């Protein structure tokens, strides 16, 4: 049986096509700038992009040379901040997901986590300055800066870990409880192994966040310049300040006169590249998790 195509149907179909293309355009309009921007940055950065850029120290008043001290500084900050926020965040999520009952106190904790995630980075900077630099007397130092970053990444790690833990079916836990395991034994033997890739994904994503943040470290421990020898892997001590890639990009583009044009672009590309690399790792890990998941 055939229905005749009435004008009404035709209009309906036309609207459908228009709507589809409009929405497609809106979605595409996010990809296009991303591709254009990355392409432009890479093109401008091209003359400086080489291995030497990574391992050289800045030269001739930071006008030329590489980013080694800033790169090492960023690695210090990321590793230290995650060394604090990952264990605390994962354990906090374990508490919230496995131990906490649904009462007012735990609801306040939930609310706190959500709001901690929304606190502007500059307010974290104020907090880091007031709490770590002055009150705790850590001074302007790598410790202050990485603790500030740790607190900034904490809520997101809590949230992503909770999500990973919650995806483990309750029946798994019940099976384990029924053979006489305690709560912690259950968590250790069943819950954590089954959610580890999800937890890791969440932590890895915070690597790129910690590496990219500028405001919180600007006032707590990142320094304009520090003379470092080429190839020195441990140029900083923890009570000292360090250079950082994000801060370096900021100072290169606002403070340093006559800088070789491709150098700040290369620094931006390096930051972007690190972020994309980290995200790609996380995405692959997540894919692996999904493929392995059998429930």
């Amino acid at each position: 049986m055939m229905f005749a195509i009435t004008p009404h149907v035709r209009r309906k179909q036309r609207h459908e096509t228009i709507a589809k293309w409009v929405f497609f355009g809106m979605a595409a309009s996010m990809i296009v700038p991303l591709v254009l921007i990355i392409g432009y940055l890479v093109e401008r950065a091209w003359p400086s992009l080489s291995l030497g850029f990574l391992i050289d120290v800045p030269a001739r008043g930071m006008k030329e040379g590489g980013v080694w001290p800033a790169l090492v500084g960023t690695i210090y900050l990321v590793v230290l901040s995650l060394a604090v926020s990952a264990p605390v965040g994962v354990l906090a999520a374990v508490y919230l997901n496995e131990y906490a009952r649904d009462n007012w106190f735990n609801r306040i904790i939930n609310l706190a986590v959500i709001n901690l995630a929304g606190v502007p980075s500059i307010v974290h900077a104020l907090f880091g300055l007031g709490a770590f630099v002055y009150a705790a007397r850590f001074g302007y130092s790598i410790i202050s800066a990485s603790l500030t970053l740790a607190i900034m990444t904490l809520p997101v790690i809590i949230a992503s870990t909770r999500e990973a833990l919650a995806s483990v079916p309750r029946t798994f836990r019940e099976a384990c409880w029924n053979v006489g395991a305690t709560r912690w034994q259950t968590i250790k033997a069943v819950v954590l192994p089954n959610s580890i890739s999800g937890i890791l994904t969440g932590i890895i994503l915070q690597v790129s966040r910690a590496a990219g943040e500028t405001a919180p470290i600007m006032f707590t421990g990142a320094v304009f310049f520090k003379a470092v020898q080429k190839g020195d892997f441990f140029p900083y001590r923890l009570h000292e300040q360090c250079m950082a890639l994000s801060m370096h990009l900021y100072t290169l583009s606002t403070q340093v006169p006559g800088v070789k044009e491709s150098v700040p672009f290369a620094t931006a590309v390096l930051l972007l590249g690190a972020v994309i690399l980290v995200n790609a790792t996380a995405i692959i890990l997540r894919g692996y998790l999904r493929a392995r998941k059998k429930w």
Partner: protein
Amino acid sequence: MNTPPTSRPAEESFAVRKATRPAWDVLSERALEILIYLCGISAIVFVLGIFFFVFKEALPILGNSHFSLTQFLFSDQWYPTSELNKRYGVFAMIAGTFSVTALAMLIAVPFGLGAAIYISEFCGGRTKETLKVVIELLAAIPSVVWGFIGLTVMSRLIVNYTGAPVGVNILNGGIILALMSVPIIVSIGEDALKAVPDSYREAGLALGATRWQLVRRVLLPAAKTGLLAAVLLGVGRGVGETMAVLMATGHAVHIPHGIFDSVRTLTANIAAELGEAPANSDHYRVLFLTGVLLFALTFIVNLAADLVVRGIRRR
């Protein structure tokens, strides 16, 4: 939430376990559980800590006779280092924050929601996954890189195409901020659409509705609170963003009259001046007070978004 049985599991085998488990094992488990509890409450400690420290540094200025809160909020005179007459009015910065955020939302909300609808309703499989990955990447670009793009790329484009005298202005900051807040609007918006039961879609399709009609008549009304939450979180992101607006908006203290005017935002003002304000000076304290204001603003916005999301879950 997985609440285990109210009593310890396997209560009857308790005696057996007590005999077989060494004491240090039981003790270390207890210690670990205390540690877990401490970490659990750390989140609340940190939030209170943030509020406490930021407020503590700001507090003394409120008792200062030279300082008036009304002037702080409603005066556009910002002279923190004047030798003749120090004035601390952040009204121009409040106007700056709102104008940049408003423009950003004007761009980001339609595009973000449109993209969310496309991802959720109009495409599937590979395309969907690809788009989601792109959005994730877009969200991960550090704000200092966005600021750098605004300062070097966008400002030149704006001067060339609009003839504006200066390329770092509200338009520049608004576009950058829009690109930064689109990902959050898309992902939360998509969640909201996903939360609409499939039976709604099936009912609509069974009545012969096209997908556009379905979106317009069924999904948007059903998901509107979730979409509101997405917009609110976008606003929260816009208000709190620092480095990008610091570099892209031109940093001028005045109340804007058009999108080609340069402005300064609350966040950028702190970032630019905090390093240079000697600790415990009035200037330093006023910057912390600005931090309290920002904290309160984002707290309200996030709380509202959270309540909205919670409302949906309960339904």
